[in-house]
C-alpha cells in the first residue's frame, strides 16, 4: 500500500517535471489553427509532422542546422587536439607552475562571458572573424578547453605510467608514446569528452548570439532565441525546431546516462 502511494507520487512528479516539454511537443504536432485556439487542447485528431517540414521553409533552419554542425564538430576536434596535449602534460610531468596552470584553467571556467565579450567582439571585427564560422569555432574551443582538459586529465591519470614506460624503453619518443599507447587506451574517455564538447558548443547561446549577425552563420540556439519574440505566430514551427534541436542531447543522455551525469557534474556546460 505504501509502495503504491510512492509509485503514484513518482509518476505524478515525472509528469509535472516534464510538463513544459510535453506541451512543446504537443504544440509541435498541431496545425496553426489549433495552436491559436482557446481553450487549448493537448491532443487533437489533426496532429501531424507537417510543422517539422514547414519550419525549414518559413525560417532558415536548414542553414542554422548546418552552421551548428560545422561549428560544433570543428570546435570539438580542435578542443580535443589542444586539450589532450595539455592534459597529457598535467598527468605525466612534474614542472614548475603546474598547480598555478591547473588553477588558471579551473578559474577560467567560472569567468563570466559578459566580462570578456566586448574585447572579443572588437577583436573579431578588427581581424575580420566577426560573423564567421572560424571566429565562433575559435571562441567555442577556448571556452570548452578548461572543461575538456579537466576531464581528459582525469582519464589520463587512470592509465598506469608503466604502460608508457614500456613504450619508452621500446624506443618510442614521449609524443609517439602519447599517440600510440596512451590515446588508444584512453579512447573511451576521449569519446565521452568529445560528446560533451560537441554538446557544449551545440547548446552555446551567448557568444553565438553576439559574435554573429547574419543567417549564414547563426546557429540553431540563436535562431530559436532570437525568433522566440519575433515570429510569435508560428509557435508550432518554433516548437518543432526546439524538439529537433533537443534530440541530440536527449539521445546522448539516454544512451550513456552514468557518464553523462558524471561529466556534467565535473564541469560547467552552462
Amino acid at each position, binding site marked *: 500500500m505504501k509502495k503504491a502511494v510512492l509509485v503514484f507520487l513518482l509518476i505524478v512528479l515525472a509528469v509535472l517535471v516534464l510538463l*513544459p516539454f510535453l506541451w512543446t511537443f504537443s504544440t509541435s504536432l498541431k496545425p496553426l489553427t489549433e495552436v491559436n485556439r482557446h481553450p487549448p487542447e493537448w491532443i487533437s485528431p489533426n496532429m501531424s509532422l507537417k510543422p517539422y517540414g514547414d519550419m525549414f521553409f518559413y525560417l532558415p533552419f536548414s542553414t542554422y542546422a548546418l552552421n551548428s554542425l560545422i561549428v560544433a564538430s570543428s570546435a570539438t576536434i580542435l578542443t580535443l587536439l589542444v586539450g589532450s596535449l595539455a592534459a597529457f602534460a598535467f598527468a605525466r610531468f612534474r614542472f614548475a607552475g603546474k598547480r598555478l596552470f591547473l*588553477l588558471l584553467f579551473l578559474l577560467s571556467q567560472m569567468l563570466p562571458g559578459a566580462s570578456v565579450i566586448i*574585447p572579443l*567582439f572588437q577583436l573579431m571585427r578588427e581581424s575580420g572573424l566577426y560573423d564567421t564560422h572560424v571566429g565562433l569555432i575559435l571562441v567555442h*574551443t577556448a571556452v570548452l578547453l578548461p572543461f575538456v582538459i579537466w576531464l581528459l586529465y582525469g582519464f589520463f591519470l587512470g592509465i598506469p605510467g608503466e604502460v608508457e614506460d614500456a613504450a619508452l624503453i621500446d624506443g618510442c619518443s614521449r609524443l609517439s608514446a602519447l599517440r600510440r599507447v596512451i590515446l588508444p587506451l584512453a579512447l573511451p574517455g576521449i569519446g565521452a569528452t568529445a560528446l560533451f564538447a560537441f554538446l557544449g558548443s551545440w547548446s552555446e547561446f551567448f557568444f553565438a548570439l553576439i559574435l554573429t549577425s547574419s543567417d549564414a552563420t547563426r546557429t540553431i540556439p540563436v535562431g530559436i532565441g532570437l525568433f522566440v519574440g519575433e515570429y510569435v505566430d508560428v509557435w508550432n514551427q518554433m516548437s518543432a525546431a526546439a524538439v529537433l534541436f533537443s534530440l541530440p542531447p536527449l539521445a546522448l543522455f539516454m544512451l550513456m546516462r552514468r557518464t553523462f551525469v558524471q561529466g556534467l557534474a565535473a564541469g560547467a556546460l552552462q
Partner: protein
Amino acid sequence: MKKSTPYVLLGPALLFTAFVLVYPLFQNLINSFKDVSLVRSGGGWVGLRNYAHVFDDSLFWLSFRNTAVYAVAGTLLALLIGLGFALLLNLKIGRISHVAAALYTIPWVISPVVAGFAWKWLLNDNFGIVNHWLSSAGIARGGFAWLGDPRTALFCVIVARVWQFYPFAMVMFLAGLQAIPLEQYEAAAVDGATPLRRFFHITLPNLRSISSVLLLLGVIWSFNDFNMVFVMTRGGPINSSMVLPVLVREFSFVHFDLGKGSALSIVVFTLLLFLSLLYLRVAPRKDAT
C-alpha cells in the same frame, strides 16, 4: 626528456586561454577607463567616468538586486527541491526509481534556450496551458500576461531557472545520501531515534559539505546566466527582470556605449571572482600535486 616538454604541450591551450580570457580581460579593464563607442569615434581616457555612470544609473542597482534575487532565491529553491527529490528516490522502491531519476534529470540535459522557450510558451497569455488551467479552476481570469507584467516576470524566470537547475542538486544529493554509512542509521535505530531525529542528526549533517558546494556553484552559475532571462523576457517589461549579464549586452550593443558596458562587466567580474575564490576554498580537490 627535455625540461621544456610540458610547456610545449601546454602551449596551444595557453594560447587559446590567453586569446579568449587574459587578453580580453585586460583590454576590458583598459576600455572601462576610456570613452569607447560603437557608433562614433572617441577613445580618450576618461578616468573613472564610466564607473560613475554605472553606479549613478538606477538601472544598475535594479539589475544588481534582480541578479542577486535570481541567483540566491533560485539556487536555494533548486536545492530544496533537489533534496526532496533525492530523498524520495533514495527510498529505492525498485526499477521505477531509476526510471524516475532519469526523467527528473531531463530539464538539466537540454539547452537553456529550449528551456526558456518551453516556459515562455507554457506561460503564454492567450494560448498557454497555465492560464487555461488557472481560469478553468476559477483561480484567475484567463489572459494574464505572466511575462508581460512587471510584478510577475522575474518570478517566472526564477521558476524556469529552478526547473533547470534542481536536477543538478538532486544528482549530487543522491550521491551524497548513498555515501552515508549505514552503521550510523543502525546505531541510531538501536538508540531508539525517531525517523525525524535521524534525518536531522544524521542525514542533514552528512550533506553539509555538498550543500555548500552546490550553493556556491549555483549562485556563481546563476549570476553568470544570460540565457534564461534573455530568451524569456530580454530583461523586460520596463526592466523588471533585468539582470547584469543582459545589462552588459544592453549597454554595449544596444546603446553602443562600450566604455560603460566594459565598466559594468568589470564590476560583474569582480563580484564573480570573489565568489569563485570562495568556491575554491570549499570545493573538494581533485588532485593537488
